């Protein structure tokens, strides 16, 4: 029998046991179009029944894969059709009921998050989208596992500034309603530009209108594996380092592809995409910041950080691309603050600021993610933060997003603790000069000239 080399076997085992390699999430995307009804109760029942029957075995299958291949599958999740597309006849109370039905379905199936309480308003708001956005604070604060996202811009459509103004208000309100638990509601709400329709990661996952009836999407992980590979490479130059990262990314992604194929087959679902994002966790040794520091920075946030991140992000994609059948989702390095031990440390030592994080988002995926800001930050300032980040995405034809937490009653120097994968966030300083007049103008920032490709 042909032999797998001992060196390769030990490398794989070491990646899992010492370097925190895992499958971050197996996310089942479920279409809810056939649940539509003009009666809210019937709609809610249809949604609950469909999710609980389709995702009935999701957790069990995740655990079986974990056992078979000896690799942890951290999260089993569900994403659904953006709810504003199927709840059109509902008012905002109706949307709150739909949110509760989704949460009950998540609870019944044992998954840890369900995403898709979402609206797509990049060009303008439909009546249903407006009602859903109005319902967000109550819907998210009143549920445990539900995540929400709103796409406010795209390179094709431009930027909906009215929606951005609304989201500034919604974030503040959600922070206030969930003030007893460090404003955690805001960790489950994300504002997007160019939102991907097959993203397996929360809080932004939803199952886009053009997706299959039911598809499995997988999010890989492995910042610790990449950091160790860079360490082993020693003092080589950056071209060689890019090769090391590509090779490592290939191996990580192949495991994701294996899990995806197996899960799709066992669950009778379509094969979706592998998301090539390097997703950190608060565990020491599972940090994107540590990779950047291993590349040669004294601390993440130092000048040179954006260049390091650009190279890392590019090499991860190039390596992963060949290893997966279909690549999608966010596919880039995540740089959340609260979920990354290295980012938290850099903020606390004064090396990493909000401005630097914004610059970093120009060259990687996601955006300003899991950042705690003072509780008294004005809603217009939050809208300004969103507008800046969204403009980076629209102008660069890429996804960007904002998930900030104006932690009620907290100021710079305090920190908020969400526990688990959401981690701990030091409250960061925000530029307090007001963009109020700009935000209150409302309207639409037109699409960039390079959107006209036809």
């Amino acid at each position, binding site marked *: *029998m042909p*032999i*797998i*080399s*001992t060196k*390769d*076997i*030990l*490398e*794989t*085992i070491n990646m899992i*046991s010492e370097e925190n390699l895992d499958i971050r999430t197996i996310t089942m995307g479920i279409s809810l179009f056939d649940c539509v009804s003009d009666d809210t109760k019937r709609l809610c029942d249809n949604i609950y029944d469909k999710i609980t029957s389709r995702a009935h075995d999701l957790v069990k299958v995740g655990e*079986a894969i974990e*056992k*078979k*291949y*000896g*690799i942890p599958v951290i999260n089993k999740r569900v994403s659904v059709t953006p709810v504003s597309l199927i709840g059109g006849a509902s008012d905002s109370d109706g949307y709150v009921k739909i949110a509760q039905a989704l949460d009950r379905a998540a609870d019944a199936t044992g998954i840890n998050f369900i995403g898709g309480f979402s609206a797509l308003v990049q060009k303008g708001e439909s009546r249903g989208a407006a009602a859903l956005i109005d319902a967000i604070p109550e819907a998210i604060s009143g549920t445990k596992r539900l995540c929400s996202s709103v796409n406010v811009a795209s390179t094709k459509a431009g930027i909906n500034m009215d929606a951005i103004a609304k989201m500034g208000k919604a974030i503040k309100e959600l922070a206030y309603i969930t003030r007893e638990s460090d404003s955690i509601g805001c960790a489950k709400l994300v504002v997007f530009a160019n939102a991907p329709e097959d993203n397996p990661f929360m809080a932004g996952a939803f199952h886009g209108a053009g997706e299959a009836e039911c598809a499995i999407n997988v999010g890989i992980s492995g910042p610790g594996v990449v950091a160790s590979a860079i360490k082993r490479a020693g003092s080589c130059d950056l071209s060689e380092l890019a090769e090391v990262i590509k090779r490592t990314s290939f*191996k990580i992604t*192949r*495991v994701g*592809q*294996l899990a995806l194929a197996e899960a799709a087959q066992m669950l009778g679902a379509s094969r979706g995409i592998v998301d090539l994002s390097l997703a950190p966790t608060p565990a020491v040794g599972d940090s994107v910041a540590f990779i950047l520091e291993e590349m040669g920075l004294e601390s993440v946030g130092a000048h040179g950080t954006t260049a390091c991140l650009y190279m890392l992000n590019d090499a991860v994609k190039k390596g992963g691309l060949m290893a997966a059948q279909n690549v999608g989702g966010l596919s880039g390095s995540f740089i959340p603050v609260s979920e990354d031990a290295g980012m938290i440390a850099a903020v606390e030592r004064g090396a990493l600021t909000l401005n630097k994080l914004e610059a970093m988002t120009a060259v990687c995926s996601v955006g300003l993610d899991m950042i705690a800001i003072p509780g008294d930050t004005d809603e217009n300032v939050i809208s300004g933060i969103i507008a800046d980040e969204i403009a980076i995405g629209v102008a660069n034809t890429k996804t960007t997003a904002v998930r900030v937490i104006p932690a009620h009653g907290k100021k710079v120097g305090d920190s908020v603790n969400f526990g688990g994968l959401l981690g701990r966030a030091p409250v960061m300083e925000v530029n307090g000069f007001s963009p109020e007049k700009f935000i209150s103008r409302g309207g639409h920032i037109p699409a960039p000239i390079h959107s006209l490709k036809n």
Partner: protein
Amino acid sequence: MRAVISVTGKDSAGIVAKVSTKCAEYGVNIGDISQSVLDGYFVMIMIVDIDGLTVEFSKFVDIMSELGHKSGLVINTMHEQIFDSMHKI
């Protein structure tokens, strides 16, 4: 179908015997063994055929892991596909 059993821990007499006896008990045929001891630290990799396995694979994973616990060793049993996926194009 094949699986890889890795055994690591402090060296002592009879480790190979214990692990291979358990394999035989559940119909698992050993195809290849590579084993070494470095500074009193035992490392063994076994490639085994699991076509004749008499219990569910996940159950066998638990049985071997339990044997490891009892013997002061770490025993991981993983389907070979993960190694093939990662290291072969």
